[in-house]
């Protein structure tokens, strides 16, 4: 029993660590390409300088992302051999395609980082575009594999056996579209606001820095376009989850009782035994509206599922509210930014907006992590929704606490170094007076 807990913790920690680098690996190349395109069009050196500095940061992030991703591909088997034994044949396809996309990423990252003087400028920019597209594709493929765990498709179950396997149908399962969309946008939101926050911080010290103004403009363009789209995609995701995984939706909303015109609870303290929630903000008919855009719709509650099939309601509900809260805050910041832009008032002169951007900087990543907690903890106790329980999949290995502690220490150490090194990349940026 303890080994299962540690195996889940190790997987969660490895994913939580890797996803930060994966999201930046999707977002940063897009920012770099935009900066380089602006340099090629305007000839201004500030964009080139910016692009090169972002590229240096990306080199560090990418290396750590690549090795932590390698660890994950092995951990699928080291921790969940029971799962991989059956699922490998079904969802190996997207992983293989991801392998190729990652190959292309690694190749063009090498060309991009080290090829500045070896290929013509336009070719260099083009290799950045290929890098960005490969990054997005890598993410898309991996997320379809996760989507399959939530909405398994492309096989028949006969007794214990999986037969009539159709890897394509497994890849384009009912959860794929909304998960892929939500995660790709999340990568842009998280990377965009994180980068914008860093440059806003430096602009607060030195408002005239051309470098940070250029950086802020590019990062905010990506962030403020994707944040509102993300809200729409979130609505789509919630409605899909309601159809595909009603128990997960019920846990997300701490919705115990099946009823028509179900209220929406925000925050609060869910109580599984009493099947109630206390101290929550209650919006009448809110959940029915959210799930079906109709206030009278009947929404299935947790009471309709055996207690053994419930996920941890508190974790899932709080993580969901945290994600939505961050998303709404970022939507607000986007609207504020858009309003200033509409009025043609220069962004860097808005001191309060800059401060808000600094505060909002980590929220994209907080939402991203919380969202994955909702997806993964919300699917429990299943590793393949409705088909295989996580406890059936875990390795027979003992003392999983040992690798868990080892990787946790290692990853905390790496995270500290990465932050230190990234910080150092910014310290020698020329200020406006030079």
């Amino acid at each position, binding site marked *: 029993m303890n080994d299962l807990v540690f195996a889940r913790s190790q997987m969660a920690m490895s994913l939580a660590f890797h996803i930060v680098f994966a999201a930046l690996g999707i977002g940063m190349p897009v920012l770099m390409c935009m900066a380089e395109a602006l340099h090629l069009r305007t000839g201004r050196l500030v964009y080139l300088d910016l692009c090169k500095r972002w590229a240096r940061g990306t080199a560090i992030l990418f290396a750590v992302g690549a090795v932590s991703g390698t660890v994950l591909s092995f951990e699928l088997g080291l921790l969940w051999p029971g799962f991989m034994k059956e699922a*490998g044949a079904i969802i190996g*396809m997207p992983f293989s395609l991801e392998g190729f996309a990652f190959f292309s990423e690694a190749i063009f990252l090498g060309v991009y980082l080290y*090829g500045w003087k070896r290929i013509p400028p336009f070719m260099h920019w083009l290799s950045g575009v290929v890098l960005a597209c490969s990054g997005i594709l890598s993410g898309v493929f991996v997320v379809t594999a996760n989507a399959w765990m939530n909405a398994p498709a492309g096989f028949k179950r006969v007794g214990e056996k999986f037969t009539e396997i159709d890897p394509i149908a497994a890849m384009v399962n009912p959860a794929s579209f909304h998960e892929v969309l939500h995660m790709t946008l999340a990568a842009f939101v998280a990377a965009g606001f994180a980068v914008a926050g860093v440059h806003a911080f430096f602009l607060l010290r030195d408002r005239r820095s051309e470098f940070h103004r250029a950086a802020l403009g590019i990062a905010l363009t990506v962030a403020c376009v994707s944040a509102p789209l993300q809200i729409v995609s979130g609505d789509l995701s919630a409605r899909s989850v309601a159809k595909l995984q009603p128990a997960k939706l019920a846990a997300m909303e701490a919705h115990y009782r099946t009823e028509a015109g179900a209220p929406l609870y925000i925050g609060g303290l869910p109580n599984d035994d009493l099947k109630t929630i206390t101290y929550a903000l209650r919006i009448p008919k809110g959940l029915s509206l959210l799930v079906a855009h109709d206030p009278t719709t009947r929404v299935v509650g947790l009471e309709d599922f055996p207690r053994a099939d419930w996920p941890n309601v508190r974790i899932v509900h709080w993580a969901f509210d945290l994600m939505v809260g961050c998303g709404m805050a970022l939507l607000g910041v986007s609207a504020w930014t858009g309003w200033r832009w509409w009025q043609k008032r220069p962004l860097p002169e808005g001191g309060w907006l800059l401060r808000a951007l600094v505060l909002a900087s980590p929220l994209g990543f907080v939402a991203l992590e919380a969202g994955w907690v909702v997806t993964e903890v919300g699917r429990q106790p299943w590793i393949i929704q409705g088909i295989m329980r996580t406890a059936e999949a875990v390795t027979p290995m003992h003392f999983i606490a040992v690798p868990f502690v080892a990787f946790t220490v290692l990853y905390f150490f790496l995270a500290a170094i990465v932050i230190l090194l990234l910080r150092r990349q910014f310290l020698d940026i020329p200020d406006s007076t030079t």
Partner: protein
Amino acid sequence: MYELIIAAFMLLSLILYALLGGADFGGGIWDLLACGPRAEKQRKAIAEAISPIWEANHVWLILVIVLLFSAFPPAFAALMTALNIPITLMLIGIVLRGSAFIFRKYDSQGKGVRHHWGTVFGAASFLTPLFQGMILGALTTGRIRGVEGQVTTGFFAGWQTPFALSCGVFALVLFAFLAATYMTLYTRAEPDLQNDFRRRALGCGLTLGPVALAVFLTSKAGAPEMFRGLTQWWAPLLLAGTSLCALTALLALWRRWFALARIAAAGQVMLILTGWGFAQYPYLITPDVTFHNSAAPEATLRLLTYALTAGAVLLLPALMFLFHLFSHPENGGDAQP
């Protein structure tokens, strides 16, 4: 049928991983062992040579593992269970090697800090191939047993045998040999440096002989199926080919025909791993798991074959471009701004 095509792709990926990724580990070994008046120059040349390509070279390993779990899922499950410990250790090595390498490059603090990262990078480069050889060797020992996909021999079987250990040492020396040989070409503009790597390559090339003999001798008791494979009709041919490559590589290094030395060294590695693949067939994990009894359904294998073919057509030109672009040092040293 399809399972054999995919097995061939896996062997090819493994060979390329050894030739390319293995050489990057070898570079780390030489970084750790750098000495003499040009130690810093050696380290710098190694770092320059592997910086642009090591991430791409590393992907071959991911490809092998992804193909293993897609095409032979029960074998993957059994392997990851029985060899959980050495694989975990290898992963820690991989994480430390990659991170320390990039940290050293971007840590702009004083020499002391950079030196520490260099040590981590070198030590991880040294230990990882050792575990990789042990893992590969363990598959062949016949000591990992299972019933219906459940491993019954625990977590310590196979990988601690003398045979597996000698496979580990063999991988280590082989990677160091490859790296030193490649570096003789990369440093052609600097004869002193080139000489340093030439001496290292020669030393490793000569060490390979006795280590290979140790692998062969321990295989008789430690990996009987492998030993039987190596005494079949094709084995003398393969042995002759491998020996020819090995001698050519040594001679070429001695006579300073460095381009030939690289080809011969690569040929040597290719033949060794091909021989291993043939001796291993039909077993993935000797003797219970074969390529046939662990293969995924045909629908999966067929699609994988298509995907591999398409991927190869798209990616190989890009990879050639990468290697072509960075086959020589840039004028004025480091390309970083």
